[in-house]
């Protein structure tokens, strides 16, 4: 199979996956028990007329199949509905939160990948040494640390030490200040949540990269290269690391989804107004339109990331596209 046909096949598969996700998203949230009207407005004075009116407005009085058809139609028309809770269009609620999450998650993920993979290379290369034991055990500890615990620990430390804000995204005073002050304020607020997210995610990259490097080092071509008299560092940079990167690329694509999950806790602990905490709140409120929108966006990200990873994988390892 040529590269072109492979790309088309993967693209078709991604589109199909997206369609299935769209349908599942609708079903998934309606499986949660409870009526949004009752949940949103647990008010002792709520009247029957009010409940009926709100149910009508939310479209909850329509049969489920009709709600599904309207939902599918609206998704593809770009009308993602009105949030039950905020009473504003979902896009207005979702996109600012999404942007805030990307601001936090993107650099944290890049840092985690770079540092994690770098440490993995080091540990794999120096297998059995104190460096390896140190890197591996710290990676396992970081991998196992609960996100909220690490976040609270950092907050406790910085409350005592000072110097960095422990919550929110920007200082109120910076909001109306010059753009530089705003930017700096956001950067300062980012440091602790980004550090938390980076630390809890980098362990997995270290562990995978280390295993990959160790696997590569036992290959015959490495032994042959040594026999030819190639230097260790040249061999590592030119042959071992590029080959060992292949499984890591898959892990990175898969981890995009889990990083969002990790961000839910980080955003909650640091009161970062991102999509993670929005999803968390919306589940309790049964705010179906926001949940549907958020999951569609996340699904889109994950599917796109996997698509890119598949193509990159095939490009880097030509054996894949012929399988």
């Amino acid at each position, binding site marked *: 199979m040529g590269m072109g046909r492979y790309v088309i096949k993967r693209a078709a598969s991604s589109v199909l996956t997206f369609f299935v996700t769209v349908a599942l998203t609708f079903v998934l949230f309606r499986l949660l028990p409870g009526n949004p009207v009752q949940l949103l407005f647990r*008010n*002792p*004075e709520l009247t029957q007329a*009010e409940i009926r009116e*709100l149910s009508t407005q939310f479209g909850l009085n329509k049969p489920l199949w009709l709600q599904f058809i309207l939902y599918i139609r609206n998704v593809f028309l770009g009308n993602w509905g009105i949030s039950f809770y905020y009473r504003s269009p979902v896009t207005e609620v979702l996109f600012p939160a999404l942007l805030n999450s990307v601001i936090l998650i993107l650099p944290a993920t890049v840092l985690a990948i770079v540092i994690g993979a770098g440490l993995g290379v080091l540990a794999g290369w120096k297998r059995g040494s104190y460096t390896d034991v140190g890197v591996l055990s710290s990676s396992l500890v970081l991998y196992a640390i609960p996100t909220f615990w690490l976040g609270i620990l950092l907050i406790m430390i910085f409350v005592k030490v000072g*110097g960095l804000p*422990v919550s929110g995204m920007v200082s*109120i005073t910076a909001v109306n200040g010059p753009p530089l002050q705003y930017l700096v304020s956001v950067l300062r607020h980012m440091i602790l949540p980004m550090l938390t997210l980076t630390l809890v995610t980098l362990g997995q990259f270290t562990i995978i990269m280390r295993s990959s490097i160790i696997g590569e080092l036992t290959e015959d071509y490495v032994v042959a290269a040594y026999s030819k008299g190639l230097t260790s560092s040249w061999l590592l940079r030119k042959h071992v690391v590029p080959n060992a990167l292949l499984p890591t690329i898959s892990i990175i694509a898969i981890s995009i989804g889990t990083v969002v999950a990790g961000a839910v806790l980080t955003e909650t602990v640091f009161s970062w107004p991102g999509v993670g905490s929005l999803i968390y709140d919306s589940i309790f409120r049964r705010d179906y339109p926001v949940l549907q929108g958020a999951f569609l966006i996340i699904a889109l990200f994950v599917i796109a990331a996997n698509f890119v990873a598949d193509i990159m994988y095939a490009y880097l390892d030509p054996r894949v596209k012929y399988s």
Partner: protein
Amino acid sequence: MQNLTLTKILTLIIATCVILTPTFSIATTAQTTTSNSNTFILGYGGTPFDTFNPFTTYTVVSTMSTIDVYDTLVKLTPNFSNPVPDLAYKWTIYPNNSAAVFYLVKNATWSDGVPVTAQDVVYSYELASNNVSRLQPNVAPIISVEAINNYTVEIHYHPTLLLINNIISQVPIVPKHVWEKYVPDPLNATALSDYQDYPLVSSGPFTVSQYVQGQYIELTANPHYFYKTREPHIKNIVIQFFKDSNTMVAALESGQIDAVAPTIQPAQISSLESGYPNIKVVVEPGEELWYIGVNVYPYGHGNPTLKDLQVRKALAYAINTTELAQVIWRGYATPAAGLLPVGNAYHDPNLKPYPFNLTLANLTLEEAGYKMGPNGIRVSPNGVPLSYTLYVINSDPEEIQAANIVAGWWKQIGVQANVVPEDGGALANIIWPNFTQDFDLWDWYTSPAVPTLLSVFLANQTETGISDSGYNNSSYDKLYGQMLTATSQAQLKEDAYQLQAMLYNDLPYLMLYYVDSIEAYNTHFSGLYTNMTGGPFSDVNWLTFLDLQPAHTSSTTSSDVVPLAGALVVAIAVISIALYLKRRGST
């Protein structure tokens, strides 16, 4: 080659330092400005903000944020007993208590400069009666609202003594000329529901100057506010949203914010009081009641033994509310007897919690014919074991602990309770419409000014998904109707007491405790109105933001450390440059 690498590394270090230095130095300014005497930052960790529309919001933070943004015709004194002027400078209530005339001030203007008139009042009351308005039950007794002239309003209503407390002091007056662009027909439910009311035009002592979803609301003092003696002392109030109360308290400790609301955990009090002399904790009666709802619905499908009053009495004797309040809330809760919390104006102080007496509980069951089974679980005369499911709302881990403690006491009287935590949606699905539950441990919040929480037990509230006990008592319904139309305050109070006594005797709820409101603030601000149910930052306390003022103008504690960090970064930069120059010179 080596020089080139060194140069790159040093350039990177210097660049990092250059970027970080302003980060820290500007940060110093920001932190210090946080404690600027013109800005008060309140951290809020409760249910997130939903909308500014005062007719469709269901969140405390929304009502609290706009309590000094929108005016009402009158406001209530802190003990909720008397009205004081707001947009109406005087009023007359007709002797038959079915009509009242309100005279508006003539110098009140909206924040866009348009005068506030009687037409705004009429329009606002129409909005309040819209089917999706949360105030619709409040204004139900109103027959008509008419503008006699631009500054006089006449209201006709079915006689009720709750006119001021439950209607006039509750309905916000909004600008007709702005709102009618979005809600031309004030009774149109969709239009009212869709209107977000932001940016908003208001007439109160504060205006909403900024709102960023999920982050904060900023209020700014209204320079054109008509009530000169009530002008705020602080220029800006910021309500910053928090997801986690630990982080919020940490932000208070670090000086990032000036106060915390709506409540913090009792465990956080001692560390705040002992470690931070500039932070004051305020404990006031709260607006929250926790209870165990018993399924007594005549057509329900729970364990039928719970319809027997003797069983419910025995269960009540087997709950030590004093110990629960102590263990679960570390004493920051009051054992409950009546439905209305201790800070409510209609709380019945004569009712006392059922005594904790396991012997009496066992005896009550024994005499009612519930014999102990071989497995330690009592069985009814009809052979139904006293084995129940105790659902508990899972949002509060403390309450799950409370449910387990109660189950432990009940076990000692031969009653088995299987504790099952559920989220609100799942619990609602279990209860309504089929009433398949036995017990639900849940809470209610109620306004401290009115006794209307008692409406939860009206028979018709079972089908609306409000009543979780299914209590059905026509005498209760009749007395509630009588209370609403009482002709004297004494009668109204007496009726509210009687209703509470009926619930106390019939036990559709096993009352647990009224939780205190625990808030805290930095003492570099003073004037907070603390002697009010719900604390200084509740949704009924309209005085705090007005009376708030700086106690002194010193900077916060945390900012002292910040210059140190900045200096450190600058020092690293200087040393790096020096090293670089030295190496360069040597080569």
